[in-house]
């Protein structure tokens, strides 16, 4: 029997609301900035067969991967092993996980004695041991250097801490207090999810709710199939490159053939390069999550996000390649760097089918900067995982967003005040970077420049960046976006230089365990988004606005947009350059604006 649509919508909204509340609880109680400021977590609900019935709008890289992580855990453990009050933890990339820092906690939800399903969270634990502070070692060559790996093990047993497991965790992580606090924030989030689900089940009944969630999934699947049917059938190919793996200075190719066949999409990554020696390999779950992410960007955002909407999207990822890493290859950058590139190649393929819906490439790197050491004031170890925001690609009807987390996540930028309060670092400057957005009819979003001053006697830093050489691509005649960089000015030096020059690292963008000292400055530049459409078609008035806002320099306005600016008595005006006058779509020739 079909349930009334209004009734189903109410149920969907209530389940989603439970997931949101789980996230708020975690955000308000976690210890690490990566949680409470960065939102690097996800909350979702599953039925007793391991099908996702709802999720909230947190980190999409984890949302897509949670399907596989939960599936693996239920398969390995067996549903019958779960008891009320149990919580299991799991972060193994080779068991359906994303990358090592992402810990999944899973709690069964019973009504009376009958299992309804599970509340699940995945959260990025900021410090998990391994060779580099903050785990993201840009030069790791095997997973054992990347941190503590946990297969599915019980963290709570019928409501009681399994202290043997907690002791192992706290002993192997450099910042045990943060681990304790963050895992308890996740436990609190699961408790909220469990309590709200039980309230729901008591009101609606378990059997009815299971039936209705099944119908919700069927409707989501049908809706997503209709969305895909609107994309012209065909096979669309695209490729992009990771510029190095931190071990050898060579690029590595990611290739996809996206086949649209009626209401189904097959993303086939056959032809992608073999898994690399360095840590840029993605797990199958990461590749799948990135593919879902790209398709969701191109389809109706109102499609209910449950297992149903994922079903029409199939992913083929050959084992042993960069998109389906096998033991014991390292994988820590697969979910921060390669993930972004996978979203980009799927988007780049589908732009050929639906150019009006797609966007140019975003900055596509986490600009992961890890640092740690001993707090001068307290003598305690500190560690932080910092990611920088990037410019997003311009689309067919709007400029790209500025300084936003790459689309693998929705993470917020950690405020400067939090940074300076918690760590011996002074943020000397943080600004949007002029000219970093790709030129176009619609301009790419801007990246940023951040300069950090070290205020401790010494600090250990690591980096895992990409897009330092191969810029984000533009579309339909739009220009490429700006590239990233990380450089250092020693206290005794007068200019910023690359880490390859100062510390002789193999890669300028991927390295670990570099010791910096008091007074050193570190400059982080994040990438901008690609532009969309011919820059000469951008209305000259908008180019003038961009110059006034310092998004675009006068030089780039002239060279890339063909708009020449004149300043006279505090007023800036423009004239179109001779070359622009030949463009078919010219804008009004004279506008004066007060500077």
């Amino acid at each position: 029997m079909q349930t009334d649509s209004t009734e189903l919508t109410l149920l969907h909204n209530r389940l989603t609301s439970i997931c949101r509340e789980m996230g708020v609880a975690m955000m308000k109680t976690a210890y690490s900035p990566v949680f409470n400021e960065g939102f690097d977590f996800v909350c979702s609900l599953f039925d007793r067969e391991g099908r996702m019935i709802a999720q909230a709008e947190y980190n999409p890289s984890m949302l897509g991967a949670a399907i596989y992580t939960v599936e693996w855990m239920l398969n390995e453990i067996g549903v019958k092993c779960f008891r009320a009050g149990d919580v299991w933890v799991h972060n193994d990339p080779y068991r359906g996980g994303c990358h090592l820092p992402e810990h999944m906690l899973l709690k069964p939800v019973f009504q009376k004695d009958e299992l309804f399903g599970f509340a699940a969270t995945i959260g990025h634990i900021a410090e998990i041991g391994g060779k580099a502070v903050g785990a993201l070692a840009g030069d790791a060559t095997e997973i054992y250097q990347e941190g503590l790996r946990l297969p599915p093990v019980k963290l709570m047993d019928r409501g009681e801490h399994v202290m043997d497991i907690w002791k192992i965790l706290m002993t192997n992580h450099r910042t045990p207090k943060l681990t304790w606090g963050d895992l308890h924030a996740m436990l609190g989030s699961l408790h909220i999810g469990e309590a709200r689900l039980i309230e729901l089940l008591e009101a609606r009944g378990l059997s009815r709710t299971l039936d209705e969630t099944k119908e919700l999934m069927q409707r989501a699947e049908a809706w997503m199939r209709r969305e895909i049917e609107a994309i012209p059938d065909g096979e669309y190919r695209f490729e992009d490159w990771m510029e190095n793996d931190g071990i050898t200075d060579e690029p590595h190719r990611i290739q996809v053939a996206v086949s649209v066949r009626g209401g189904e999409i097959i993303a086939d990554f056959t032809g992608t390069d073999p898994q690399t020696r360095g840590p840029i390999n993605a797990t199958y779950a990461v590749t799948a999550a990135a593919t879902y992410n790209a398709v969701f960007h191109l389809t109706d955002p109102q499609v209910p996000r449950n297992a149903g909407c994922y079903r029409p999207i199939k992913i083929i990822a050959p084992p042993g390649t960069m998109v389906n890493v096998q033991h014991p290859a390292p994988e820590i950058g697969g979910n921060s760097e390669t993930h972004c590139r996978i979203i980009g190649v799927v988007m780049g393929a589908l732009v050929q089918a639906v150019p009006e819906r797609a966007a140019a490439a975003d900055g596509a790197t986490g600009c992961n900067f890890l640092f740690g050491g001993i707090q001068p004031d307290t003598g305690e170890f500190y560690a932080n995982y910092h990611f920088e925001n990037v410019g997003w690609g311009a689309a067919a009807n709007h400029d790209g967003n500025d300084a936003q987390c790459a689309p693998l996540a929705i993470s917020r930028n950690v405020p400067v005040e939090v940074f300076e309060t918690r760590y011996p670092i002074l943020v000397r400057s943080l600004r949007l970077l002029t000219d970093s957005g790709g030129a176009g009819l619609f301009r790419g979003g801007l990246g940023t420049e951040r300069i950090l001053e070290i205020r401790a006697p010494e600090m250990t830093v690591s980096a895992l960046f990409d897009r330092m050489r191969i810029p984000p691509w533009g579309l339909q005649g739009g220009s490429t976006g700006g590239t990233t960089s990380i450089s250092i000015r020693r206290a005794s030096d007068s200019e910023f230089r690359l880490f390859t020059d100062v510390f002789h690292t193999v890669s300028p963008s991927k390295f670990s365990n570099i010791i910096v000292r008091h007074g050193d400055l570190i400059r982080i530049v994040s990438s901008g988004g690609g532009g969309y459409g011919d820059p000469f078609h951008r209305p000259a008035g908008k180019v003038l606005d961009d110059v006034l806002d310092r998004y675009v320099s006068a030089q780039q306005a002239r060279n890339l947009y063909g708009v020449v600016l004149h300043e006279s008595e505090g007023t800036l005006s423009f004239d179109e350059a001779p070359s622009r006058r030949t463009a078919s779509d010219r804008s009004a020739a004279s506008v004066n604006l007060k500077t």
Partner: protein
Amino acid sequence: MGEWADRGLASDYFQQQNVHCSACGKMIPRRAWVVMRDGKELLFCEPDCERIYDEYCVPRYGATIRWR
């Protein structure tokens, strides 16, 4: 037509290599959808991957076992 059977290596902690779906490449934790073709055993993570194998993989790559 296939059947469900235990083929994955989820609980074997001495073995680090996983078993993969013959169509999509996904690791199989424990239960696999097992299909016999011309005397060869194909493992899938779900029955729908058998369909993908027949409709997409075989026409493109031939009826070969590309990975285990």
